């Protein structure tokens, strides 16, 4: 069932675009590529579907799933409904890394922009973790450290952009910061797929531990959970997933924040069900958002982050209202 929905979404993602391509052609392309079926097709159509749209849809799906998973995990662990994957300073660090490479020319020639973003994300996460450990126990420490880290790296990014960037570069960076799937090809997918799958497996492995955090970390400890080990594994995998996704597509907001709430409203709080459902909704939502971003303004691609925020912010307001209603 879940697989059917996912495949249908991918199919849509490959068929819809500036030039619509019939569903049949999409199916035949996939058959050609995967099983050497040998259907006669227009090379241009086949090229668009396979090299451009399908890879893009697959990356969108992985990215949505990974962000949603990270969101579920962080909200459950930190007992904070506002936690999202970027709370660990990852997106801020990634953008600093990206501008360092793109504008300052750091690691010239060897470092690509995604690599810069990835390392920036990891550095920021390391710094935030260090700060959180220094700040002492409790989930508030992580959130505060994340806020401080994000502010610092955002300031660095702005500093670099204002000081060194040309107008053209600044626009490019802005576009990247808001999330951009335009440059995505298959090599990116081969990075995104294992990251998302590994994340899903690690999270599912810890599903019961996450359940045990319902009444907080102390209560989880008294239920026999090694709190520290669980934190390390789950925060670590969330950071890894998010860093990979951010380095491929930029920081796409609201997915990691809103999808977990939506999934919880649909299937409840049991993580063994919640995690896969959130991943699926995240994947499908992201594919649809990508389609919208391509067709909403004819002849122009909107940053996908704009779509996710436009849908996500009202959805989040709705969720908040629901929470209040049962306060």
């Amino acid at each position, binding site marked *: 069932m879940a697989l059917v929905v996912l495949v249908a979404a991918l199919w849509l993602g490959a068929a819809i675009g500036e030039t619509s391509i019939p569903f049949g052609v999409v199916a035949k392309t996939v058959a050609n590529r995967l099983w050497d079926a040998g259907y006669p097709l227009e090379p241009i159509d086949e090229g668009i579907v396979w090299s451009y749209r399908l890879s893009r849809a697959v990356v969108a799906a992985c990215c949505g799933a990974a962000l949603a998973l990270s969101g579920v995990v962080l909200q459950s662990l930190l*007992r904070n*409904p506002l936690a999202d994957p970027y709370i660990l300073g990852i997106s801020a660090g990634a953008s600093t890394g990206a501008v360092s490479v793109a504008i300052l020319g750091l690691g010239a020639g060897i470092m690509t922009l995604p690599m810069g973003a990835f390392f920036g994300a990891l550095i920021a996460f390391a710094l935030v973790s260090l700060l959180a450990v220094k700040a002492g126990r409790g989930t508030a420490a992580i959130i505060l450290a994340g806020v401080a880290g994000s502010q610092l790296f955002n300031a660095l990014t702005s500093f670099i952009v204002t000081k060194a960037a040309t107008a053209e570069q600044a626009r490019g960076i802005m576009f990247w910061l808001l999330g951009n799937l335009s440059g995505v090809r298959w090599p990116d997918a081969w990075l995104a797929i294992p990251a998302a799958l590994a994340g899903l497996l690690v999270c*599912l*492995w*810890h*599903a*019961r*531990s996450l*359940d*045990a955090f*319902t*009444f*907080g970390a*102390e*209560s989880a*400890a*008294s*239920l*026999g*959970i*090694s709190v520290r080990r669980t934190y390390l594994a789950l925060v670590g995998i969330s950071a890894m997933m998010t860093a990979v996704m951010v380095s491929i597509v930029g920081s796409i907001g609201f997915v990691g924040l809103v999808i977990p709430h939506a999934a*919880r409203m649909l299937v*409840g*709080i*049991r993580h063994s069900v919640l995690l896969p459902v959130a991943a699926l909704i995240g994947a499908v939502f992201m594919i649809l958002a990508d389609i919208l971003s391509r067709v909403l303004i004819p002849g122009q691609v909107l940053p996908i982050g704009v779509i996710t925020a436009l849908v996500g912010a009202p959805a989040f307001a709705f969720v908040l209202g629901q*929470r209040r209603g*049962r*306060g």
Partner: protein
Amino acid sequence: MTLSASNISWSVGAASIVDDVSLEVREGEFLGLIGPNGSGKTSLMALLSGIRKPRSGEVILDGVPIGRMGRREVARHLALVEQQAETADRITARQAVELGRTPYLGPLSPWSANDDAVVEATLENVDMAHLAGRLWHTLSGGERQRLHIGRALAQKPKILLLDEPTNHLDIGHQIGLLDLVRRQGLTVVAALHDLNHAAMFCDRIAVMQAGRLVAVGRPFEVLTAERIRDVFGVEAAIEIDIEGGCHIRFQAQSGRGGRSVSMGDGTGKRFSRS
């Protein structure tokens, strides 16, 4: 199953919270832990349950230092009910109790019929079966606390640690809850605020003052007028009935802000200065 602490200490920065406490919990007894706010009761409970490691000293569960046992292993023998654990999740009463099975379930061992049976029996036991499907946030304080006890009981522990389990409950629910706990026939260590409840339900009482354990013993041995004055700063009259039960009547005193008040005992000690 025995639980004991030998010379355990715990501090935050320079402030000593639990200071060189040794305590032996006897099998099957109901041990009350009393002391004023900030005397280290909650910290001592956390240390005894092993979720916090002492700076020095050792907590020993059934002959093994608790720090050397795995968390899951500990959780199958000993359950802790913390003070006011709350959640904003949309969790049902039954699901809250189901959490108690966590120490018996692994990533690859599925929920079993036995787990269902334990949860159902526990819900009956804590008298929440009729509310099993209700959402957490729709339940009263007393019902939530019974579910916390239920969650702990679903762990099938030998030892139950309760940190001020009757806080914020009305008197009926306070007595009902302590009665429920005593009926389980488990070894219980409970931090309690109400001295009369401690006297009523406990086999022995341990008194904490400024992080130190200042007395342990039968209620009538421990709850003396001198000690209550010394530890809590209130005047009290103690009555011991023929069965060894002991009743404490507190006396109001001006300027001291005594906690609970009975209208004097005819000795004329109650006066007001204005």
